[in-house]
């Protein structure tokens, strides 16, 4: 499929979503006698554009802020700064009543398929709930009809409409989650680790389903995952986060073939390949140490404490996002150095 992420040379359409300098901070109260509030910078100055029909993959390890970013975009968490522009309208910090107008166009799929479904509702009611909220004028029969249609589209038998979530396997529950997100025919779906709780053979089913729906409806997707192989499979462009900061953004081919940031290089080389000869012989760039605490991130470049290339300048100066190719940006002082 040739999505908008491929380098066709044609002028790009207007972005559907523009995020500029988005910050999501959580106030953390510390100290015993003298209480002080320290901001935990979960997402710090993240910017990107998302085009119609495009999938932006967001990768990073746990605690890098990728889920918080998704929630900050959808205004499920109020951003501490920056702007989120949806089809020309600023939506950051909108009151819930006004935001409701935009919510039908942007939906979310969660990681834990069973926990994100109310166990006391039938799946018919779960899938219909967005309709109940946004289109209360629909009759019960019209609503049921729409639910049946969408169930068929996500590969669930419409006759299961009166069953409860516990009667379904993990993969089927995730299909229910996809159906609930799709029923309003949104323009954007944020997929927050949608397959990481599923078995390998089922993961592929859900990835194919989401991809198929995207082709059919021209959806834009933000696909959040820690799994680099899956992200590569579904995304047109990929953004790599580390400790709340964007370290690299590139189209899929450049990112995997020609990663520039040492962190991206380490991430890619850490993915085990299902090929014993390659896997046992390949040179691996192993990172030492752990993620620093986000409460006291390193000065300058946040990655410098684990970076094999780090020098004095990395502690002193935060690297700017640098354009290193048509669709390739990296934030590193030494992006053109080999490791």
């Amino acid at each position, binding site marked *: 499929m040739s999505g908008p992420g491929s380098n066709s040379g044609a002028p790009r359409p207007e972005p559907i979503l523009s995020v500029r300098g988005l910050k999501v901070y959580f106030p953390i109260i510390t100290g015993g006698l003298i209480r002080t509030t320290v901001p935990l910078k979960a997402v710090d100055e993240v910017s990107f554009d998302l085009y119609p029909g495009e999938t932006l993959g967001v990768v990073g390890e746990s605690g890098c802020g990728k889920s918080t970013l998704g929630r900050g975009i959808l205004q499920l968490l109020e951003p501490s700064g920056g702007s989120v522009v949806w089809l020309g309208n600023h939506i950051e910090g909108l009151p819930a009543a006004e935001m409701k107008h935009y919510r039908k166009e942007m939906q979310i799929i969660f990681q834990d398929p069973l926990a994100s479904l109310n166990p006391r509702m039938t799946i018919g009611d779960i899938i219909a709930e967005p309709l109940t909220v946004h289109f209360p004028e629909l009759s019960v029969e019209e609503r049921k009809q729409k639910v049946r249609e969408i169930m068929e589209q996500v590969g669930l038998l419409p006759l299961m409409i009166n069953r409860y979530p516990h009667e379904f396997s993990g993969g089927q529950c995730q299909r229910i989650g996809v159906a609930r997100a799709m029923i309003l025919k949104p323009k954007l779906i944020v997929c927050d680790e949608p397959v990481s709780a599923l*078995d390998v053979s089922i993961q592929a*089913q859900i990835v194919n389903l989401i991809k198929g729906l995207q082709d059919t409806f021209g959806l834009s997707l933000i696909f959040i995952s820690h799994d680099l192989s899956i992200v590569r499979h579904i995304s047109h462009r990929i953004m790599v986060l580390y400790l709340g900061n964007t370290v690299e953004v590139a189209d899929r081919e450049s990112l995997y073939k020609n990663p520039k940031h040492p962190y991206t290089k380490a991430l890619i080389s850490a993915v085990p390949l299902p090929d014993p000869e390659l896997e046992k012989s390949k040179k691996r760039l192993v990172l030492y140490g*752990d993620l620093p605490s986000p409460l006291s991130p390193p000065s300058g470049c946040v990655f410098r404490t684990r970076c094999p290339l780090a020098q004095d300048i990395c502690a002193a100066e935060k690297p700017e996002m640098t354009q290193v190719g048509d669709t390739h940006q990296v934030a590193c002082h030494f992006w053109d150095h080999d490791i």
Partner: protein
Amino acid sequence: MLLDIQHLTTSFDTPEGEVCAVNDVSLQIDPGQCLGVVGESGSGKTQVFMSMMGLLAKNGKSEGAVYFEGRQILGLETSELNQLRGVELSMIFQDPMTSLNPYLRISRQMTEVLMEHRGTSHKQAIATSIEMLNLVGIPEAEKRFRMYPHEFSGGMRQRAMIAMALLCEPKLLIADEPTTALDVTVQAQILELIAGLGKKMNMATVLITHDLGVIAGLSDRVAVMYGGRVVEEASVIELFKSPQHPYSKGLLESMPRLDTSSEVALHAIAGQPPDLQALPAGCSFEPRCIYAFERCRREIPDLRASGENRVKACHLEKIP
């Protein structure tokens, strides 16, 4: 041969009736070898080794035999098992937080192992434990040694678990999804550690995982489990090069991988994993198998040779 599991069958008594989690499983491991056991949730891969270690839930029971260095250990009394567990046989689990005692310092949990099993003096136990923490790559081991598990990051907890499992230099380490809860960069560290220590101490390893990539890097042989049975067993090279069971083949094809073109659609295996309470009369993979024919619905396939030094349980002569 270090470990020889013969016709192990494990079942659980549940209110809904008896559930057979492991069905006639036989596996062998030589000293120093690494056996990978792959399967999805509910395939019985963990229960095989829980049975052997005497760690089954109360409603579980096993039949068959497990020989460790020639001695039958299945169903031994707890007191006898305790002379083996943690000494000759060690196990590490998926979630290091729930397998460490949150109330006790790492120091206490580590020295206890040595003092209990080896009768080491407290002083000596402390020295050995700190040395082991250094070996598994925990920075500032002397300081960390006195900490509680919650003060450790996920990767460090898993390192501490490994250190604890290796204190008595076991002959066999059973690693049950040791990296599933960890990030990829930490996973790479832990896998490198297990591989390195295995070689250094000439320790055999059983690596239980659902991740074929992890298996590829570490194992010598692989057993693929489905619905409580071993459906294919082969050397790691052979299995990845030419899987002979439709399930192994499907599993390999359904994995997105970094070393092939990203334009290829993923070949998902249709359907759901089997319900152990309502297994089909024939092959348990038959409802999802694209090659299934009439005999598969009727008859459970036995394990049989499918090449030199490899077996599979499938009626199909060869995958077309």
